[in-house]
């Protein structure tokens, strides 16, 4: 805990030094944007040093030995821990907290939108809340699954004891709290009202909260890139003997594909906001009309932000595919085609960005090519669906909460994907762009595709992580409740968009009141379902029935170790000798532990029978 205190103290000192130096050199006040930028940078350095950077890196740079914490209690979750499992939980809890804060902002928005006219917030404040909601939720969608479960599960699934770069992994996580702090403190400087998309010139001329938004984006981007490097290196170099590429679990494949993307394109969002910051404080003119171009911002921004949605959804594909094979007790259908499709999506996703710009005033000749490739990306996405449907086909289905939520996912993402075609088509997009049709579409794909998968992952791996089972009835009820009310919230919004209601407005023509009221009531009921979600998990983590290594009778490596896993995951080297999804093949084994006396009695947390199943 003392490290957290030290991090805060050094952060504050860093901020003060940055602001003070700036004021001393150029004059001006402490809330000048230049001062805020310098203060933020030094605050970040102070924070990272304080939380453990000094021990983990500073000592090494000074020629001394590295010191990292070996605490095993609850305190390590508030410290610079290099254990990937601790980091995974840190990401998970932090991002679920961010999800709930973003959810509260959504509730405020929906209460305001339940009636036309100005209600509980004025129009400008409404835009600020919309912008905050957007960026908080984008952060959860981008990092939720890959940060929490990518870190926790991937090393175990490939038979490794940790990630390739454990200290970097910890830095990656500890970059995230400053992001939340910067965003949530931005109202002190006037907040930011240009949407999470922050188009220039509005983002160059609006209030100073925009600066903190820009700093937060760069910080979060660094975390994404470091995480990407770590996962790529780990999966390539640290697979257990016998873990050939053809035996890699699909969740790990999805994590690898995601990491290639996040490593390659995240810097463009950072670049865009850095240029905005420079236009604000350094007198540059990147986005000013006479010498620069507002279109330039859009191109740079969307060059990241379109692949970003695949960064959001690819881990989701991985989770759903993993859940479906386990709960159907069937091999993953068309495994090779699915893996190829994951990477086809990675490749295509970087050349479709301007489908967000069909009405932007960009050159007409760009419409055709971007429409073509956007259409094309639906083909590998369809193959992912084939993998899911083909695995379900004639499977032995066991409807536990992860599968219930996976079904909600399937319904939602199909609608999300189909409505994407309406937007890929230039003629229809011209009308639908910037309307509630788009809002409904991306909620179906991002919430329906990424967040629902996050929920499924939470229930699927909860017993592994906590060693206890959640309450199944509460879980299934939650799964159905969240699916039903999610749909009731967003279906009316397709209608509203088509019929002339545009985005990011706190007030609308009266004709849209009915649809909005219905959506608002549904949204509030949807929101309350998360009380059941959190309640179930908290209660079960403390008082739930204990489980053994493999309550689902699954086959991937994480189910062959105790629940919760021991410190370095494996007590002896796993050797992979078969496919992880060879259900139905008598005597097939995915991996074993040749150095153990009794390879399947893995102790701590419960004993197992022949198949490693809880008895």
């Amino acid at each position: 805990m003392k490290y957290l205190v030290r991090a805060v103290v050094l952060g504050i000192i860093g901020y003060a030094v940055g602001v003070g130096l700036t004021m001393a050199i150029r004059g001006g006040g402490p809330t000048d944007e230049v001062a805020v930028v310098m203060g933020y940078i030094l605050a970040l350095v102070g924070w990272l040093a304080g939380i453990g950077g000094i021990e983990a890196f500073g000592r090494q740079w000074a020629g001394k030995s590295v010191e990292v914490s070996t605490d095993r209690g609850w305190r390590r979750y508030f410290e610079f821990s290099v254990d990937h499992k601790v980091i995974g939980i840190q990401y998970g809890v932090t991002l679920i907290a961010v999800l709930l804060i973003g959810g509260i902002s959504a509730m405020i928005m929906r209460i305001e939108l339940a009636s036309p006219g100005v209600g509980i917030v004025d129009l400008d404040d409404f835009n600020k809340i919309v912008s905050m909601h957007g960026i908080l939720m984008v952060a959860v969608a981008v990092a939720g699954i890959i940060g929490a479960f990518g870190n926790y599960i991937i090393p175990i699934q490939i038979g490794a004891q940790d990630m390739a770069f454990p200290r970097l992994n910890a830095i990656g996580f500890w970059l995230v709290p400053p992001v939340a702090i910067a965003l949530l403190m931005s109202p002190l400087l006037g907040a930011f009202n240009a949407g999470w998309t922050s188009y220039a010139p509005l983002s160059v001329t609006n209030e100073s909260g925009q600066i903190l938004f820009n700093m937060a984006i760069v910080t979060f981007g660094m975390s994404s890139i470091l995480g990407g490097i770590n996962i790529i290196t780990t999966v390539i170099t640290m697979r257990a003997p016998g873990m050939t590429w053809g035996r890699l679990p699909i969740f790990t494949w999805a994590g690898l594909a995601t990491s290639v993307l996040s490593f390659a394109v995240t810097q463009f969002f950072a670049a865009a906001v850095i240029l905005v910051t420079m236009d604000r404080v350094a007198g540059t003119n990147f986005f000013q009309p006479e010498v620069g171009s507002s279109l330039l911002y859009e191109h740079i921004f969307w060059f990241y932000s379109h692949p970003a949605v695949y960064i959001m959804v690819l881990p989701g594909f991985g989770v759903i595919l993993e859940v479906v094979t386990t709960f159907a007790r069937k091999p993953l259908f068309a495994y090779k085609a699915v893996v190829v499709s994951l990477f086809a999506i990675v490749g295509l996703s970087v050349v479709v960005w301007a489908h967000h710009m069909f009405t932007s005033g960009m050159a007409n000749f760009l419409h055709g090519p971007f429409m073509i490739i956007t259409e094309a990306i639906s083909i590998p996405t369809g193959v992912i669906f084939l993998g899911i449907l083909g695995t379900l086909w004639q499977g032995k289905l066991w409807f536990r909460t992860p599968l219930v939520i996976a079904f909600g996912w399937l319904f939602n993402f199909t609608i999300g994907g189909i409505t994407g075609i309406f937007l890929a088509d230039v003629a229809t997009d011209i009308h639908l762009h910037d309307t509630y049709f788009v809002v409904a579409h991306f909620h179906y794909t991002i919430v329906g595709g990424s967040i629902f998968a996050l929920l499924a992952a939470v229930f699927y791996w909860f017993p592994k992580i906590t060693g206890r089972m959640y309450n199944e009835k509460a879980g299934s009820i939650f799964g159905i409740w969240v699916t039903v009310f999610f749909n009731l919230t967003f279906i009316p919004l397709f209608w509203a968009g088509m019929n002339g209601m545009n985005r990011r407005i706190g007030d609308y023509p009266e004709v849209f009141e009915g649809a909005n009221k219905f959506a608002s009531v549904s949204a509030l009921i949807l929101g309350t379902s998360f009380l059941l979600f959190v309640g179930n998990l908290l209660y079960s983590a403390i008082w739930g029935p204990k489980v053994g290594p493999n309550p689902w009778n699954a086959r991937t490596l994480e189910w062959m170790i105790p629940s919760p896993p021991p410190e370095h995951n494996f007590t002896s080297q796993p050797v992979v000798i078969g496919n992880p999804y060879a259900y139905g093949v008598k005597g097939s084994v995915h991996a074993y532990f040749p150095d153990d006396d009794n390879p399947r009695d893995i102790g701590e947390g419960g004993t197992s029978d022949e198949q490693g199943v809880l008895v």
Partner: protein
Amino acid sequence: MRRSWIPVVILWIAYTVLIVWATAQFTWFPKEWAREAAVVDEAMLLLQYLAAPVMALVLAVMTWSVIGWRTEGGAHREDAAPVRTNKIVVTTWLVVTSALAMYVLINPGFVGLAEIRGEPSSDYVISLQGQQFFWEVTYPNGATAVDELVIPAEARVRYDVISTDVLHSFWIPAFRIKIDALPGITTTAYATAEGEGSFEDDVNLRIQCAELCGAGHANMSLPVRVVSDAEWNEYIEVLADSEPDGEAGNE
């Protein structure tokens, strides 16, 4: 081996029919007030019909999963058949989805794009200047207005759009046309209005700013009135005459 494909195909057909029927019943588009609107609505409808079997397939598999493939036994239930892949299924799937994607790309993709753009010629040119938070209209004779946009029916009008500050967007929902207003660069949209009417008849006969531009974004709209060609010419003449120096607007 259980013949699962029979019930699934039956469900597939049933769901497809249901969705197609619902699509035909429920006309959920606003009234078409321009030639362009018809292009867009037709494209929307075609895509909805094409989407029906796709949605229906997923629904059919989901439905039969719950009815036909649920298994007792929990964690100790038996394994399913070890089907890793099926070359015919995968190939067929790829061929069908690619064909569907290609078809949609051509129609309503490129066909719709060509139709909504139309010819780069126009009967009249009207300029729109967007600024935080109102629109200023300039007619071909130099007359300006900020209280409404008046358009001649049955004439192809080119809208030249520009912004004086941040990004805005020129959108007339009733026409289904939209083009962003950029500072320093003039952008263009074409529309041929059909039928006479005004904002009082249909709330979608308005310019609505469709790009977040600040606090007043929600209310940055302008009513639209479509009148006959003769009436329009008279209107803009009267407007020009009533301006003191024929330059700035009346506000």
